[in-house]
């Protein structure tokens, strides 16, 4: 009975989520359900709380109110089914580890305390590195990588987690065009394999092409649903207000679509 429930529970369910920094709320009352097998983009203006939402869901920030369910349970119960790609700037790239070391960290969640990754873990890490075309750079210290390469290392680490639900914080920020194309292909492949992927995204102009569901966020949830229903001039206007000049271009191009 319990098992049946957990398999049908959505990968992510958020209810009335409220987060405050220094008692100053940055996210209020967010309700959200992400269905299984979807590729969901979280978009909104700077300071809208996109990354905050991701971090709160992952338990990296304390909640002022509300709750989060991962596959119907707590994050701790489903940590192995949950993968995470942090923002690139969140780590020190001079740290003395090489590319392979970082990808192997994706296996750490599957290992009990005190156990080192073994041969099987190395094989998985190699396969994941190969998937992002980084295998030839496996032995490089991570500081000797370009921005796009660093992002691909983080993606390979997430792949090595072999999770069912992934959270990615701005994976497209500051990467070259080739990496951007490689990442979006990878995301689509993951979706095709039934994974659920939630991505914080900053670029409105590509959001519609990349994601099949969108979450429009500006301190509160403006809208969430299939891209075709949510990516409308009215809702975008409501999300971005008058703050973004690119908005009018996008809205205009929406109007030109048949």
């Amino acid at each position, binding site marked *: 009975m319990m098992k049946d429930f957990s398999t049908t529970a959505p990968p992510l369910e958020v209810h009335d989520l409220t987060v405050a920094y220094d008692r100053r709320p940055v996210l209020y009352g967010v309700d959200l359900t992400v269905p299984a097998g979807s590729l969901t983009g979280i978009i909104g203006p700077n300071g809208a709380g996109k990354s905050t939402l991701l971090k709160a869901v992952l338990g990296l920030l304390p909640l002022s109110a509300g709750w989060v369910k991962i596959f119907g349970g707590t994050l701790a119960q489903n940590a192995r089914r949950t993968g995470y790609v942090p923002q690139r700037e969140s780590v020190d790239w001079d740290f*003395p580890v090489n590319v392979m070391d970082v990808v192997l*960290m994706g296996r750490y969640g599957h*290992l009990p305390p005190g156990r080192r990754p073994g041969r099987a873990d190395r094989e998985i890490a190699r396969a994941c590195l190969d998937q992002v075309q980084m295998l030839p750079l496996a032995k490089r210290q991570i500081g000797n990588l370009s921005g796009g390469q660093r992002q691909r290392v983080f993606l390979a680490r997430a792949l090595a987690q072999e999770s069912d639900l992934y959270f990615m914080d701005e994976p497209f920020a500051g990467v070259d065009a080739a990496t951007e194309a490689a990442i979006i292909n990878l995301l689509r492949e993951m979706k095709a394999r039934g994974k659920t992927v939630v991505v914080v995204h900053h670029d409105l102009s590509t959001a519609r092409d990349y994601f099949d569901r969108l979450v429009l966020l500006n301190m509160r949830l403006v809208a969430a649903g299939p891209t075709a229903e949510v990516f409308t001039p009215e809702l975008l206007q409501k999300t971005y207000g008058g703050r973004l000049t690119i908005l009018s271009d996008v809205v205009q191009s929406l109007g030109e679509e048949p």
Partner: protein
Amino acid sequence: MRTGWLAAGLVLLAAAPAEAARIGEMVEWDFGAQAARFFSLQDPSVRYALGGSMLLGLCCGLMGAFLVVRKLALMGDALSHAVLPGVALGFLWGMTKNPAAIFAGAVGAGLLGAVVVQWIRATTKHREDAALGFVLSSFFGVGIVLFTMIQNLPGGAKSGLDGFMFGQAAALGPEDVWLLAGVTVLALGAVGLFYKEYVLTSFDEGFARSLGWPVKLYHYSLMLLLAFAIVSALQAVGVVLVSAMLIIPAAAAFLLTDRMGAMLAWSAGFGMLAGAAGAFFSFTGRSLPTGPFMVLAAAALFVLALLFAPRHGIVGRLWRRRSRAARIRRENTLKAIYHVMEDGGFREEVVAVDGVAARRHETAAGAGREIGELQRAGLATEADGRVAFTPEGRQRACEIVRNHRLWELYLTNAAQLAPDHVHEDAEVIEHVLGDETVRRLERRLNFARRDPHGKLIPGLADLAGGPPPTARVAGFGGKGGAP
């Protein structure tokens, strides 16, 4: 830091008469005999001093490596100064240098210091640096006041507590060494067992927390081990400089390697070496404080690493720059020889050094030196004022000329630059184009034969080391040229 030094100076002044007497003794000290005693290891006090100092180096090196990669070096400094009042209170508890009481007092004071740092950060708008500075100096000040009070107590002058200020490895007893050994085993065990946990929580805390790990537990256990390391090291290296033993060996190790495991090993090794050196000087110099010598030894290792580290070292970098400059000079000479041969229609297999000199805008002597370099590199031979390629030299010359002309062509074709704008750029690029880039350029340029100035581009057959140019006057770009 400056307040710390001032306060330390005051303590030394208070202890001045005792110091003067010891310096008087030192004059008659026989360095050679004392060194022989040290290396024979017969004397138990030598064994304690050496063993204790090396254990403290290992332990501090291990913990320091984590501090350095976490950018928490100042935390080690603050913690090590904050333990001083605890040392004094531990002494006052039984009016003896009981290692257990002093250990407990010092760990308590250190942890209190760490808590105060956290509290200041959480409740004020100050960042960590101000909080660390406050804790470091105020705790140290309290410690100095307590120390001075102890000195003035009956029997306090002979307390031996002044050894805690700058360290006295020669005063290490068996209890101190057992304490150090215990802490070292604990640190080695924790780092060995939870290596992956400590590395990941240091590198990417957010990711570690997303795995559901108790990140705070790992952080505080590391800080506790750090406090243990500091406190057990105090007797040998002293409060003022123990932080140097945390930071300097680890900082030197960081320059030597790009892997955490290797960094831990190097750091522990440097720490042990510096510890041994400190013990040696403390023993042979009798009443000299150990800490400064230990730290100077560590600093010397750091300077060596700074100079000679294979990838990050200054000497290595200079050497690579120099050798790159030399390679570019050789390649330019090869190119000049090629040009002279080309001007002669490749009828001659040897060319005059004078011609090369003119081409390089060099004096004959200068060109002679450059050709001498080619000879040493096995790229050309010179005899009788005339120079000829070796097969390898000829291949290398063809590659350079080819790189140059391909790049010029690429710039004029693809980047739409005028032909008289591309030479300077190609002069630089020709030396750095990799094989793969050359192949891509060729494909992109449809295996073109002539550069923008109408010169022939050496083909694949020339690079593969075909017959010498004289045998194939028409060979460049002729039938035997690029496919």
